């Protein structure tokens, strides 16, 4: 058998054949999930396919994460989804439980080596724990719900090796933005990214999720990290005996190898309106900020919120700045309460969103900026109109950059600002 990449390895196991990049496979799905954000709903497409039931009620999960009922129409969609979950006997995470990509790993619904299919592009987040996780649309999801299988082209792999160590004020989000800058918005289309190197080895699970979450922003099908002690320590309490090690073979064949010297990396910001429009935060220090968002499935886990709270403790956001904080899950919210992080953020002036996608997509009807306003956000997407107003300007940055910028009312480089 040839030396395999992580993708080749997982998709071989899931299709029952030794496959290599370029092959088309029919693979068995370990976990599939959908949320309330997409039209048409996958369950309606399932009915059109003539299938009465989800193939395996243990392996399909619904998460109501996008809209905490901003309208009657959404409330009625939620009612339909809850009824579907009851009829099918499937698990549903309700409004306020959090974002699918954050809740499902937290609650132990996936393990390394799993094939995970979500009807959302940021499904790639779970590649951080060694699962082949990728997003599809509603009709593809319905076919998975009906058959438990999906066809996939086995992707080539780009190996991104991150050497050195972060400097003060620099972290996983800055590295994710740097990778986007290097690869470009379509630099990994149809491919997998494997992240490796000393920086990844020394990174906790939260930072790994942040990096894998942005694989889709460079077009990748998946963003994978091999398992190690960090993965095991985080995951074993959640999945028990389903935990296993996955790593690429020595000598696996890569389409491209990218080496990044993280030791010289400065805090980064992606300017409007493209994710790969990345510059040093320091070069934007005169840019005023009207709204700051710390939230989304990218970089707002408890470590991120705690870092923001350390910066904001005992201080107030600049006059005229709206600071929005959305914990991405109920667990992150309860941790933030228990650790005093939440009270620090609220005392500094934060407005709280419902755990979920609030503050990321405009359709959530939350944190919509005014025309001409600059928004600095820890999100993963800065498309024009993303937050519901095409005349606003979205800048992507780390939680530390977000916190310092909220205090100053302009973009601040945390490397320069940190004591």
């Amino acid at each position, binding site marked *: 058998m040839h030396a395999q990449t992580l993708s080749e390895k997982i998709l071989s196991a899931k299709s029952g054949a030794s496959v290599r990049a370029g092959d*088309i496979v*029919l693979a068995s799905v370990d976990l599939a999930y959908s949320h309330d*954000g*997409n*039209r*048409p709903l996958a369950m309606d*497409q399932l009915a*059109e*396919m*003539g*299938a009465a039931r989800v193939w395996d009620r243990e392996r399909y999960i619904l998460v109501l994460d*996008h*809209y905490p009922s*901003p*309208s009657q*129409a*959404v409330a*009625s*969609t939620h009612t339909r989804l809850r009824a579907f979950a009851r009829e099918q006997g499937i698990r549903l995470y309700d409004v306020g439980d959090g974002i699918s990509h954050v809740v499902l790993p937290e609650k132990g619904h996936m393990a390394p080596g799993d094939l995970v299919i979500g*009807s*959302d*592009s940021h*499904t790639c987040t779970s590649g951080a724990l060694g699962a082949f996780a990728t*997003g*599809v*649309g*509603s*009709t*593809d999801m*319905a*076919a998975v719900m*009906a*058959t438990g*299988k*999906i*066809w996939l*082209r086995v992707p080539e792999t780009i190996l991104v090796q991150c050497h050195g160590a972060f400097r003060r004020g620099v972290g996983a989000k800055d590295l994710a933005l740097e990778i986007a800058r290097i690869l470009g*918005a*379509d630099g990994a*289309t*149809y491919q997998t990214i494997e992240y490796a190197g000393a920086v990844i080895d020394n990174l906790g699970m939260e930072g790994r999720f942040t990096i894998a979450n942005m694989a889709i922003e460079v*077009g990748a*099908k998946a963003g994978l990290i091999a398992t190690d002690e960090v993965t095991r320590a985080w995951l074993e309490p959640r999945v028990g005996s389903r935990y296993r090690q996955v790593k690429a073979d020595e000598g696996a064949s890569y389409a491209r190898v990218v080496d990044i010297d993280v030791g010289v990396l400065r805090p980064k910001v992606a300017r409007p309106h*493209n994710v790969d429009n990345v510059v040093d935060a320091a070069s934007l220090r005169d840019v005023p900020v009207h709204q700051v968002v710390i939230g989304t499935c990218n970089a707002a886990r408890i470590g991120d919120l705690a870092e923001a709270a350390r910066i904001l403790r005992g201080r107030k956001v600049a006059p005229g700045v709206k600071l929005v904080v959305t914990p991405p899950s109920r667990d992150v919210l309860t941790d933030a309460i228990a650790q005093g992080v939440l009270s620090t953020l609220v005392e500094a002036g934060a407005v709280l969103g419902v755990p979920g996608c609030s503050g990321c*997509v*405009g*359709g*959530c*009807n939350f944190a*919509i900026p005014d025309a001409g306003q600059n928004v600095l956000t820890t999100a993963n*997407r800065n*498309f*024009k*109109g*993303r937050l*519901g107003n*095409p005349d606003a300007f979205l800048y992507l940055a780390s939680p530390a950059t977000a916190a310092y910028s909220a205090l100053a009312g302009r973009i601040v480089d945390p490397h320069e600002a940190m004591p």
Partner: protein
Amino acid sequence: MILRGRAHRFDDDINTDYIISSKYKAQTLRIEDAAKHLMEDIDPGFADRIAPGDIIVAGRNFGCGSSREAAPRVIKAAGIAAVVAASFARIFFRNSINIGLPVLACDTRDIGSGDEIEVDLASGQVRNLSTGASKAVQPLPKVMMNVIADGGLVQHIRKHGTYRLD
């Protein structure tokens, strides 16, 4: 099958938020209603300028961003017959095939707005009737050809109960 229509030219990296703004995503707007907002944030009034059968022509990475299947559905409902781009984001590409919107990857550099375009789905050719240039389309995997032949993924699964790879 041959499609013929007028080109509407777009740049690189046209994302799904541009195709249909996420502010309409939460609504239970029918796709036909949402089609009035096609490309609204980057090209206000675009939907009003479409004649049925027109073709969207774009640069690289068309359809990047979210997995929303509403994106190709809205394009189709707006009367666009096909999208021709230098390259596509993978989820958008799959979604388009699944719902029966022809998407073709080929060199689009010499196609401008207003050019008359002919797309030959069977032979995989895109011809610019205004300039006479002809480009070969990247071939599709067999499974996608099967989905197209069955009239979309819903019909494909209805018919076979699974995916037919060969």
